[in-house]
């Protein structure tokens, strides 16, 4: 069963990328199988008509596990009726609506609003027939504006923080050396004198 799903998914990925020209790279691996031929098979039969042996692929996949706030990502799902309208949502937020291709697959890009909280967000694809698959993507924490202003776009890292401290340390050592040198000279002067 998975073999069929895989072949179908591979073709679905390639087909959708070429057809709708989303910003998914054409060099994506058809990793869920080889670049095989599409096979008709209900990947996620509605109503759980049979047990998942072998395990079936009823979930949303993404091309990354986490994104910065407001960043666009590519999303893929299987198990829909060919041509049916599929709504991609996160909680109550509707992100995209696209039609499933002839293999019942959806591949598109989506974006979570910039003001959603950091952490894991469940992505849901719901077909007009009622078929539904889910997956998760994590939104990274947004850097505070003051931090960004002070340190550009890079996070304020440990080593970076250590640089001024190290400089201060070197300055103190140098000062100490100068003072010691002066003390020694003074002693020598007193002894010699």
């Amino acid at each position, binding site marked *: 069963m998975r073999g069929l799903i895989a072949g179908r998914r591979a073709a679905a990925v390639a087909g959708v990328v070429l057809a709708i020209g989303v910003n998914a790279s054409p060099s994506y691996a058809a*990793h869920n199988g080889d670049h095989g031929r599409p096979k008709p098979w209900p990947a996620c039969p509605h109503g759980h008509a049979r047990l998942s042996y072998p395990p079936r692929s009823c979930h949303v*996949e*993404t091309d990354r596990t986490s994104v910065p706030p407001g960043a666009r990502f590519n999303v893929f799902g299987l198990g829909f009726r060919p041509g049916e309208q599929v709504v991609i949502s996160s909680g109550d937020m509707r992100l995209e609506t696209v039609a499933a291709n002839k293999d019942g697959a959806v591949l598109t890009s989506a974006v979570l609003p910039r003001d959603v909280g950091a952490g894991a967000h469940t992505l849901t694809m719901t077909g007009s027939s009622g078929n539904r698959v889910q997956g*998760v993507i994590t939104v*990274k924490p947004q850097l505070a504006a003051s931090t960004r202003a002070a340190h550009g776009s890079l996070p304020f890292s440990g080593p970076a923080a250590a640089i001024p401290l190290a400089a201060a340390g070197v300055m103190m050592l140098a000062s100490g050396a100068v003072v010691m040198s002066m003390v020694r000279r003074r002693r020598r002067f007193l002894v010699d004198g």
Partner: protein
Amino acid sequence: MLLAGAIWIVVTALLARSDLLAARREADEAKAALLHGDVTRAQALAAQLRDRADGAHARTTGPAWWVASSVPWVGGPLASIREVADDLHLLAHNALTPAMNAGISLDPDKVILGHGHLDLTRISAAAAPLDQATKAVAAVAHRLAGGHTNTWLGAVDSNRTTVVNSVTKLQHTLSDGVLAAKLLPPMLGANGTRNYFVGFENTAEARGLGGLPGSYGILTADHGYVHFTRFGSDVDLNGATASVSFGPDWRARYVGTYEVLNNFVNTTASPHFPYDAALWLSMWQRKFGQHLDGAIATDPTALGYLLGATGPVTLSDGQQLNSSNAVQVLESSVYAKFPQLTPQAIAARKNYLVAAAKAIAGHVTDGASTNPTALVDALKQAVHEHRLVVFSERSNEEAQLASSSLAGELSDTTQPFAGLVINNAASGKLDYYLDRSLTYERSTCAATTSTVTVKLTNRAPSTGLPPYVTTTIGLGRGPTGVNQDQVSLYLTHGADLSSLTVDGKKAFMQTEQERGHPVVSLAVRLQPGQSKTLVYKVHEPRATGPVVAPVQPLVRPMHVDLRSPSCAA
């Protein structure tokens, strides 16, 4: 005067070294004597060992040693030698006697009585002395970890490290012994009958724990008498449902895709055995109305180890099973014997495997006393490779088990982590031919991007395999040898995947969590002879100890290469 002192120190140091080397040799001999039931010899060796430790201690405690070892920096190596001699002296006096007493009590010949009978009284009697010895060794290990561990003389430091490693290993062995001495009696029915579900996994069809649970037995233990009361195949659990939950992460990962609550053959999808075992117990209770006290999982590789200790067993068709052919017969040639996909052929094959499990179990329990020492070694090997794992339904017992590898837990450590977990997604038996390798690379202990490279190869021949091995359920096509696995990589707590490629191309993935580990999964299809390379780039937090890379027990060994600096906890 100075020269005489220096000569004295050199001579006594060499003599102390000689004493300590002899003590180490005698410790090994004493252990071997105990395992062979030669108590008199073990006691004599222990007395010699104590004398050696006393001698080394005495040689390094005179005034010359005190003065020389007190000199800052220069005296460091001498101070280190004094500390090691002193600590081993303590070890010999505080840990040796109780450890010997425990060893005498746990003589395998006297504990394993044959015909499925174990002497629980002797096991219980070992608990107190083992506990005493463990505490003494732990105290010495703590002392050795401090003091002069880094001196200017590398040879001294190196020897100290060897001693520390030996003492740490001894501490773990004794701790495991304490655990066994405390847990085995109640779990083997010292206080009343216990019943366990024993799942026999088929690792030719991978599941997260190891393999699909194809056969099972019900093991009954009553006052140390152990026997199986029932055997069966997965068919018996068809339609069984479980009522358990381990939180939203577990539900998201296993209830939807794997349907573990109502699909017995997927119940081992998680590499965390306590989850899987709870599913078995719940399904059994709801289907057969019998409350079970725990569960055990094992596989043909482990059964092969046991047959190595007890000798071969002959099945009803004349097939002899031994340590070197158990896996091949039970996970490969059985499919050539019953190659077809017809219900009759499938039923005949399942019956054959159940009969084999019954024959092996009976042979091992009846013949355990043939070579008890070898049997203990075989069990240790199986536990070490996670091919024998145990779960107790009693929370106090399970909490104690959790501290050992016997529990089969997926560690929730925050240390750097790279866990490759395969779940078969084709329903064939081609994982018998799956080769795996994992390389983990990080250049610093600070927060960084690590690279995990996984290579998978399908070594199945392209022709000649039976249809049952190669055919995917529902396809109805001829044998091709194409395998498909759901490949999951468990990452470090708090890690974030920045990219995943398969043979150099970006890939889509599913993201989940289990026991605090981010889990990244994708399906990988492999033609016969084909390899695929998965490269994960992972943003990791600061390392909090050495890299942990558990190995899923499958048929073929997995090559693991960890390239990381040594990072403190």
